[in-house]
C-alpha cells in the first residue's frame, strides 16, 4: 500500500525547497551589498552592482516567490487580499526601484527585495514546521489505528486489511497485538493497555462480555473479539473527529482578533500608500517614502493574530487527548475560568456505578425475602435491581402480576395475590405503609451511606436491603484538589438526604442536593446558575440534559461507554482526576491564548507606527514580522511543559 503523504508534509517540503533556492541567490546579493560597505572596496562599478542585484533577485521574487506573488496580486482584482498581497506588493515595488533608479533619483532596493522574500519564505518554513509540531499528538492518534486484522472466515484464520473487516466478524488477537476495531470479547481472557486512548496507564482486565476499543493493545492472553463497530463509527474515529473539531472551534476571546484579521490587509495597504505620500508630499523624501512604505507593507502581520488562538487550541487538544481529555468546544476553555460550582452526579461519576447489596435486614425468613424481592427486581433494568437479583442468585423466580416501575421510587407488583412494593420511603408513604417499626434500622442503613430498599407485603414491612455503590479510587483525591482550588463541589443524587450526606462526607463534599429525580437534575443546575457558573460532571446516561444546560458539561465514562454528544469536555477514563486535569488544561490553555493575543496585538501596535515613521529598515521589518508569528507558534508549543 502506498503511504499517503499528508498535505502538511507537502507544504513543509515545498517551503523548504523554496527556502534553499531563494537563499542560494540571496546570499550572493548580501555579500555584494555588504562587502563594499564593510571593507570600503568596490568590487564592481555601482551600475554593474545594481544590474547584478537585479539579475540575482529576479528568480527569488518571480520564480521561488511566484506562488506568493501570484496569490498576492490576485487579491488586487478579486478584492480578497491576503498576507501574500502585502509581501507581493512590498517585494515588487522594492525590485522595481532597481530599474527606476536609472530614470529617477531614488535609492535601489532591489537587493533588499530578495532579502525580504527569502526571510518571508524562511519564516513560513519555520512556522509550518512548528505548526506540524503543534499537531503531533493528533497525528499520532490518526496513525494509531490497526492496519490489518486476523479474522475467522469459514473456520479459517485469515489476515485481511482493516478496511475489509465487517461487523460481527470474529477477530483473533494474540498477545502484544493491536485490537483491530471496537468489539466485544466472546472468548479468552487478557488485560488490555488502553493508555493510548484513555490516558489510563494501568492495563484493563478483559473477559468474555467485555467491550474492547480498537487500536488498544492486548497484553498477555489470546482474545476472540466480535467486531461491533468499524470505520468511521469506531471510538478512535470519534476521538479523532472530536479533536479535529476542537482545533477548529472558536473561543469567544478571539472574536476581536478575527475581526481585525479580516480587515487587516486592506487597512495596511491604505496605510502604506498614505505613508509614501506623507513622506513625499510633506517632507519631499521620495526614497525614504518608498522605504517606509515597503516597511509598512512587510511588517504588518495578520498571522500572529490569526494563529494566536487556533495554535494554542491545537496544542491543548493534543495534550488533552493524550491524557484522556477531549475538549469538544473551545468555548469551554474560556468558561472554565468563571466556574464557581462543580456539580457531580453520584452514580457512575463519584461512585463506580456498580451497586451491590451490603446488608439485609429481614423480618421474615431471609431466603423468602430475597425470593420475593428478586422475583420483582428481575423485571427491572435498574442497576440497584440488578444488584439484588445478583445477590439472590436464583434459578427460578415467582410469578409476578401487575408489575410496574415507579420512576425514581421503586417497583410494585403482586405475587400470589399479595401486593408487594420495593422502593424508597417515598414509595412507602405514597402507598400509606407505616415505617414506624423499622425507622431506626432504616436510619442506621442510611447513615452508612446505603441506598435503602424497603420491601413491603400487603402494606406490612417484611425487610430492608442496603445497597451501596463503591466509591472510585480517585474520587476523594480529585474532590480534595478541587475544593482546595476554591470550587464549591456539590453532589447531586436521587438518594435521600441521609444516604447522600453519608456518601458525600466520605468523599469530602459538603453540599448535597438529594432526592432529585433524574429528569429534575437540569432544573437544579439552572437554579444554581442564578448564583454562579456551573460545571456538571456526569456519565451522560440519565443526566444528558443537565450536562447540556450546565455552563461546562463534563461527560465522564470508560472506554466506549461515553455519551460523547452530551459534553463540552469528555473524559475517556472514568477517574475524577480527569476533572482536575481538564480544569488545569483549560486554564493553562486560556492563559496561553491570552498571552499570544497580547503579543500579537502589542507587536502590531508598536511595530506599524515605527515603520510609518521610517525608523525600521525594510529588512529589519521583515525579520520582525517573521519572528512575530514564529513566536506565537513556539509559545503555544510551550504549553506542553505545563504539568496538568
Amino acid at each position: 500500500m502506498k503511504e499517503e503523504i499528508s498535505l502538511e508534509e507537502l507544504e513543509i517540503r515545498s517551503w523548504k525547497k523554496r527556502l534553499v533556492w531563494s537563499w542560494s541567490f540571496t546570499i550572493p546579493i548580501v555579500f555584494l551589498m555588504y562587502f563594499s560597505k564593510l571593507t570600503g572596496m568596490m568590487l564592481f562599478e555601482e551600475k554593474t552592482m545594481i544590474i547584478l542585484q537585479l539579475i540575482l533577485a529576479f528568480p527569488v521574487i518571480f520564480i521561488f516567490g511566484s506562488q506568493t506573488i501570484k496569490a498576492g496580486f490576485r487579491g488586487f482584482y478579486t478584492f480578497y487580499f491576503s498576507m501574500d498581497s502585502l509581501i507581493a506588493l512590498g517585494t515588487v515595488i522594492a525590485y522595481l526601484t532597481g530599474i527606476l533608479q536609472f530614470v529617477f533619483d531614488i535609492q535601489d532596493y532591489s537587493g533588499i527585495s530578495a532579502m525580504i522574500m527569502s526571510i518571508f519564505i524562511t519564516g513560513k518554513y519555520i512556522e509550518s514546521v512548528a505548526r506540524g509540531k503543534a499537531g503531533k499528538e493528533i497525528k499520532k492518534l490518526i496513525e494509531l489505528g490497526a492496519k490489518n486484522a486476523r479474522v475467522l472466515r469459514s473456520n479459517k484464520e485469515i489476515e485481511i486489511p482493516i478496511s475489509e473487516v465487517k461487523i460481527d466478524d470474529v477477530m483473533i488477537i494474540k498477545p502484544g497485538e493491536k485490537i483491530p476495531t471496537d468489539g466485544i470479547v466472546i472468548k479468552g481472557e487478557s488485560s488490555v493497555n488502553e493508555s493510548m486512548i484513555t490516558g489510563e496507564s494501568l492495563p484493563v482486565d478483559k473477559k468474555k462480555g467485555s467491550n474492547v476499543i480498537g487500536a488498544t493493545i492486548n497484553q498477555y492472553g489470546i482474545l476472540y473479539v466480535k467486531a461491533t463497530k468499524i470505520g468511521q463509527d469506531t471510538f478512535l474515529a470519534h476521538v479523532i473527529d472530536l479533536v479535529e473539531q476542537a482545533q477548529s472551534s472558536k473561543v469567544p476571546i478571539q472574536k476581536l482578533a478575527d475581526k481585525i484579521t479580516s480587515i487587516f490587509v486592506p487597512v495596511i495597504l491604505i496605510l502604506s500608500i498614505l505613508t509614501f505620500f506623507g513622506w513625499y508630499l510633506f517632507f519631499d523624501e521620495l526614497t525614504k517614502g518608498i522605504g517606509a512604505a515597503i516597511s509598512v507593507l512587510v511588517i504588518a502581520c495578520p498571522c500572529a493574530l490569526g494563529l494566536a488562538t487556533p495554535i494554542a487550541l491545537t496544542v491543548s487538544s493534543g495534550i488533552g487527548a493524550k491524557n484522556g481529555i477531549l475538549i469538544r468546544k473551545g468555548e469551554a476553555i474560556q468558561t472554565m475560568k468563571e466556574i464557581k460550582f462543580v456539580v457531580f452526579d453520584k452514580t457512575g461519576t463519584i461512585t463506580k456505578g456498580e451497586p451491590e447489596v451490603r446488608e439485609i435486614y429481614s423480618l421474615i425468613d431471609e431466603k423468602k425475602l430475597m425470593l420475593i424481592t428478586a422475583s420483582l427486581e428481575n423485571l427491572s433494568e435498574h442497576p440497584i435491581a440488578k444488584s439484588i437479583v445478583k445477590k439472590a442468585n436464583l434459578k427460578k423466580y415467582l410469578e409476578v402480576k401487575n408489575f410496574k416501575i415507579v420512576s425514581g421510587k421503586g417497583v410494585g407488583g403482586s405475587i400470589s395475590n399479595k401486593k408487594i412494593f420495593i422502593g424508597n420511603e417515598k414509595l412507602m408513604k405514597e402507598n400509606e405503609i407505616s415505617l414506624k417499626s423499622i425507622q431506626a434500622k432504616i436510619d442506621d442503613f442510611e447513615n452508612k451511606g446505603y441506598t435503602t430498599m424497603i420491601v413491603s407485603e400487603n402494606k406490612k414491612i417484611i425487610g430492608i436491603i442496603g445497597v451501596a455503590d463503591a466509591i472510585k479510587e480517585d474520587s476523594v483525591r480529585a474532590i480534595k484538589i478541587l475544593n482546595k482550588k476554591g470550587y464549591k463541589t456539590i453532589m447531586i443524587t436521587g438518594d435521600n438526604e441521609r444516604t447522600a450526606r453519608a456518601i458525600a462526607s466520605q468523599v469530602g463534599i459538603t453540599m448535597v442536593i438529594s432526592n432529585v429525580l433524574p429528569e429534575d437534575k437540569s432544573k437544579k443546575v439552572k437554579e444554581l446558575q442564578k448564583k454562579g457558573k456551573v460545571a456538571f460532571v456526569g456519565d451522560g446516561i440519565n443526566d444528558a440534559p443537565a450536562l447540556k444546560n450546565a455552563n461546562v458539561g463534563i461527560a465522564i465514562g470508560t472506554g466506549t461507554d461515553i455519551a460523547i454528544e452530551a459534553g463540552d469536555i469528555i473524559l475517556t477514563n472514568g477517574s475524577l482526576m480527569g476533572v482536575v486535569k481538564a480544569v488545569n488544561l483549560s486554564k493553562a490553555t486560556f492563559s496561553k491564548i491570552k498571552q499570544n493575543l497580547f503579543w500579537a496585538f502589542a507587536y502590531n501596535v508598536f511595530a506599524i507606527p515605527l515603520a510609518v515613521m521610517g525608523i525600521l529598515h525594510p529588512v529589519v521589518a521583515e525579520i520582525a514580522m517573521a519572528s512575530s508569528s514564529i513566536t506565537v507558534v513556539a509559545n503555544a508549543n510551550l504549553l506542553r511543559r505545563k504539568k496538568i
Partner: protein
Amino acid sequence: MKKLFIEGMHCASCASNIERSLKKIKGVKSVNVSLMTRKAIVDVDSTVKDDDLKKAISRTGYKLIKIEE
C-alpha cells in the same frame, strides 16, 4: 455538513478570505474555516453544488482538493 480540504492556505487572512467567499454562496448556512487543519466545515442545503464550493475557493486563490460528506 461537508468537509473541504484546501491547499495553499497558510495565513490567517487566507482563512478569513475563504470564509467570506464561501458565505457568499446562496444556500450555505454556516462556514468554519480552520487554519490549523486546513479544512473548511460547511453546512449547506441541497441546492449548493460541489462545483460552487470549488469556485468560491479558487476565487480567493486557493485549491479545493477533496470533499468529504
